[in-house]
């Protein structure tokens, strides 16, 4: 039903003369994809990664740099963006997964900071100021410059990834991951190479985040190192926590809730961060499981 509503949305919005909201909805879906990729790492894999924006940003930079070098085809640039993010995730994951708990949080953060400074120092590609995307990527047969067409491409990718995540969670791989999250020692004793399972999960999450990055740079037409800042990683985490960690649609719900809240509050007051902060505090204290647990509780009641 949500899918039907999502498909119908751009037509309704345009009929009402508010094409602006198509752009907002696209942004929400891209962040939903990024937050869902973090959900795979955190919700299913149980790894609190505080550097997820690194993969998001790496994907975005790949597309922007390729565009500047004259490679504008989405069929080349987007898979490459995923490949670059996957490569980063393998290296970062392989080292970080040696640590546990708070140390894991901090070491993923450290790696994200390294990438952040790496892009700051890329003077040929804008350095600290970032670069404009030369042109939106082009797909054969679809004009991505059209907001509605872009909306549908993003929607299709998001739906595809969510389907993939659902299949993954239901698969043997997903079951092993859950087992590791609950009790790693037991899974090791059962003979599972837990380190490898966690690394694959971490890498998959990084790859999907890279895809989201490729989309966000197309939407904004601009990328700067700010997209890799640690507060960005924090924002992704918060979207997910807000939506519900480990719930398939947690990333979607959280991204929608947070970005819409931002949209509404910023119309209303210049101090929208204050309002957002208060709402977040309320969620932590009163609804610790996020929107997902709220829905579940209401469902149980009704």
């Amino acid at each position, binding site marked *: 039903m949500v899918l039907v509503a999502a498909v119908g949305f751009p037509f309704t919005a345009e009929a009402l003369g508010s094409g602006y909201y198509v752009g907002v909805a696209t942004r929400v879906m891209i962040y939903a994809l990024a937050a869902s990729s973090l959900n795979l790492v955190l919700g299913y894999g149980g790894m609190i990664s505080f550097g997820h924006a690194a993969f998001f940003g790496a994907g975005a930079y790949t597309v922007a740099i390729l565009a500047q070098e004259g490679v504008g085809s989405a069929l080349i640039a987007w898979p490459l963006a995923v490949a670059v993010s996957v490569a980063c995730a393998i290296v970062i994951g392989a080292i970080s997964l040696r640590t546990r708990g708070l140390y894991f949080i901090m070491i993923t953060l450290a790696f994200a900071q*390294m990438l952040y400074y790496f892009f700051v120092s890329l003077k040929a590609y804008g350095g600290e100021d970032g670069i404009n995307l030369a042109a939106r990527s082009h797909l054969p047969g679809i004009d991505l410059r059209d907001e509605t067409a872009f909306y549908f491409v993003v929607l299709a990718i998001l739906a595809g990834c969510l389907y993939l995540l659902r299949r993954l969670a239901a698969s043997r791989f997903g079951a092993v991951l859950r087992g590791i999250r609950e009790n790693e020692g037991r899974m090791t004793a059962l003979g599972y190479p837990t380190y490898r399972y966690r690394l694959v999960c971490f890498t998959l999450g990084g790859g999907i985040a890279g895809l989201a990055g490729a989309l966000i740079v197309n939407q904004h037409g601009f990328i700067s190192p700010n997209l890799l800042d*640690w507060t960005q990683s924090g924002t992704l985490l918060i979207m997910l926590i807000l939506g519900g960690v480990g719930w398939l649609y947690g990333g979607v719900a959280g991204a929608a809730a947070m970005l819409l809240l931002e949209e509404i509050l910023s119309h209303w007051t210049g101090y929208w961060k204050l309002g957002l902060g208060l709402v977040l*505090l309320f969620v932590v204290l009163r609804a610790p499981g996020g929107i997902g647990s709220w829905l579940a509780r209401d469902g149980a009641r009704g």
Partner: protein
Amino acid sequence: MNALLLLEQALNGLQFGLMLFLLAAGLTLVFGIMDMVNLAHGSLYMIGAYLAATLAQATGSFWIALPLAMALTALIGMALEAGLLRKLYERDHLSQVLATFALILIANDLVRMIWGPQAMMLDAPRALAGTIEIIPGAPYPAFRAFIIGVGLAVAAVLYWLIVRTRVGALVRAGASNREMALALGVNVKRLFTLVFGLGAALCALAGAMLGPLLAVQIGMGESILIQAFVVVVIGGIGSIRGALVGALLVGMVDTIGRAFLPALLRGFLTNNIADALGPTLAAMAVYILMAAVLYWKPTGLFPARG
């Protein structure tokens, strides 16, 4: 390479490291004893700096403003602990991240509301405006030298407090085994509030000291917070000694890396590559250091829990 320049940069590194230590000391205790991720620590630093700047303007004296700002920030920190953060100790790290991240957003906007979006000026006290010669032949800014002195003094006092006093013994007990300390009847509630207040006061001290060197502005806490976290993690969570060693390491690596790495690379790379690579590596050096430490010692240099 110029030995005097190297010495001067080493002093700068020492100065920066000691300020990081002020922040990391409070952070590592909160981390270690309460098992709490406090992202809002940087906000206390910002608030401390703003209070110091405002009070210095109002009273016209840095020396009156400094202790007042420390006391006020400590009060704010203790109120925050008693009113909100206390509820989060039993929760998982994720909830703590969310709640304290929310506090950052709130603090930034509150500061913008009260003080406006422009950066504030905080002048170094006039008595310390000149230079002194620590190293013969190389004048060094007196205020920076003063910061080094204060940092060393605080480190000494903290060491005495933690190692020699009863409160310190309780703190150490809490850091190495919280449940056991609880079971032995330590009044942890009061202890936690006290530790938090102490951490907040140190934040304000660092904010007031660094204010004249860096800008007092919104968001100033975020970048230094991450460096303080790096220090905590390198040193080992919960360990004051680790925080000191980590802070000095980070301060030195960062300062000396920025000053000398580009020139050093030019020695064996072409100028172009060295100019591009030098600043990058210098900026990344601290994080590379941390990743390396964690790779070989996954619980930091001086694990408090053992």
